[in-house]
């Protein structure tokens, strides 16, 4: 078991999502930053979609009750194992009784803890991803526990990855969305030339941006939305739906993020600046 001595700000169990239930309104969920998680799972020679902990802004304090191997990825959150600093993107052996904790957020917003063979628990509708009320809880709290298989001996094929860093990327790559054509020059000019600030309203469901791009009066019949769909409200506000986002919506869908850009945005927090680049 992995025991939460302290839960942190918002820590959830996530795999790559809950598929096949969007026609009854169940969001896909899954890790916000797939790019970072794939790398950690590759290093541990796991399945790409093996379940990890997604740790947001302020990390938990975790006690390992049996030996295994872990890999951290995503945001840099000053992690320490038994008070000694450790690196992201490196396979690390842990022993029973070891304590992993986190400190200052240095960059990004979400960090991941991957473990050899993935975390277990109860699957609901085919996925481990926490999403309330499909799952009975929305995130971990103090003294929760999560099972994993003890692993005593394992020789990693590669022990460290040096890689391009998407955490510093400021631009978000987008495709035209289904209602792109409602945009006038007055909307397009700021949309592709100005910077936008991530507002306080940002979470696993959606990121709202502070700057508005001008009003409109188009309404659409409610239709499907995806993670990465950029909606334009009548007042001109941009809302980018994320992994726990609603499955359908009634605002025009003006842009659609590339899959990689969803990972880029997932590492942004309140006050960060982004810009849009049309593919």
């Amino acid at each position, binding site marked *: 078991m992995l025991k939460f001595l302290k839960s942190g700000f918002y820590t959830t169990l996530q795999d790559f999502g809950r598929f096949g239930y969007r026609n*009854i309104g169940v969001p896909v969920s899954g890790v916000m930053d797939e790019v970072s998680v794939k790398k950690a799972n590759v290093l541990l020679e796991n399945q790409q979609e093996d379940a990890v902990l997604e740790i947001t802004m302020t990390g938990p304090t975790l006690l390992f009750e049996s030996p295994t191997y872990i890999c951290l990825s995503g945001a840099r959150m000053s992690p320490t194992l038994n008070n000694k600093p450790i690196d992201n993107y490196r396979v690390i052996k842990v022993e029973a009784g070891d304590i992993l904790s986190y400190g200052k957020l240095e960059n990004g917003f979400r960090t991941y803890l991957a473990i050899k063979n993935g975390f277990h628990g109860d699957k609901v509708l085919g996925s481990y991803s926490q999403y309330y009320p499909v799952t009975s809880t929305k995130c971990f709290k103090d003294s929760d526990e999560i099972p994993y298989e003890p692993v005593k001996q394992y020789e990693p094929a590669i022990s460290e990855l040096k890689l391009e860093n998407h955490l510093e990327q400021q631009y978000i790559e987008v495709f035209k969305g289904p209602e792109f054509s409602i945009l006038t020059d007055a909307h397009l000019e700021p949309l592709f030339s100005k910077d936008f600030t991530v507002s306080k309203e940002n979470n696993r469901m959606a990121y709202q941006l502070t700057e508005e791009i001008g009003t409109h009066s188009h309404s659409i019949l*409610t*239709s499907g939305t995806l993670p990465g769909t950029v909606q334009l409200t009548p007042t001109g506000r941009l809302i980018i739906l994320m992994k726990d986002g609603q499955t359908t*919506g009634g605002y025009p869908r003006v842009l659609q993020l590339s899959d990689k850009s969803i990972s880029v945005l997932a590492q942004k927090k309140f006050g960060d600046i982004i810009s849009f680049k049309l593919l």
Partner: protein
Amino acid sequence: MKEVPLTIRPFGEKALLIEWPIEVKESILNDILAFVSAFTNKYQREWELVPAYNSVTMISLSGAKLDFDTAKARVLEVYEKNTRSVQNERFLWKLPVCYESDFGIDIQKTAKSLDLTKEELIKQHTSYEYIVFGIGFLPGFMYLGGLPKSLQLPRRKTPRLHVEKGSVGLAGKQTGIYPQDSPGGWNIIGNCPVPVFDASHEKPCFVKAGDKIQFQSISKAEYDLRKIEGEIGIYNLEKIPLDA
């Protein structure tokens, strides 16, 4: 060969959006659902399909980058060759609602704005069959069509931060049930004790797009009983096959 013109467009890297003419019509919904049924039959493991009003969003599950032209050709082939007019078996569900003011916290005010008595409002709300044009927004939230003009009123000026699970509301051209506690701006006229979404069930949502809903007025005492039954998974709902 079908006569309804479809538009098919890419929607990001892994999805397609198929649109029928922009109308809220049962005939369009039926054409959509016939397509969804035929396509799902053929490519069940590869795609997830989300129908809503006049559109279907099709999400590829393969993980690979979508080849739009190939996918579009498949869609058209299935659509044009499909001869099935009806999808799976569809039902009219009779859902119990307690309209007493413990639950219908806005019912007096709503009746007044609609120029009806409370009894007239309940009588009208329970006399129509509402068609499910799609399920989305929240798990188990049904987009219901067919609300008569006499029951249409604007949503509340200020949304509530907390609307109780099961609340039945009216807003604009819509009526429906809040499947979970959530914020919301609808005028609340009652509460349905039967959960429309329960993740612990093999089929978490018993209703599907194309089904119809009719509400039935129940007393507080019956509500309490149905609520307890619902919590342990006994629904005892009356359902009538639509295509019999």
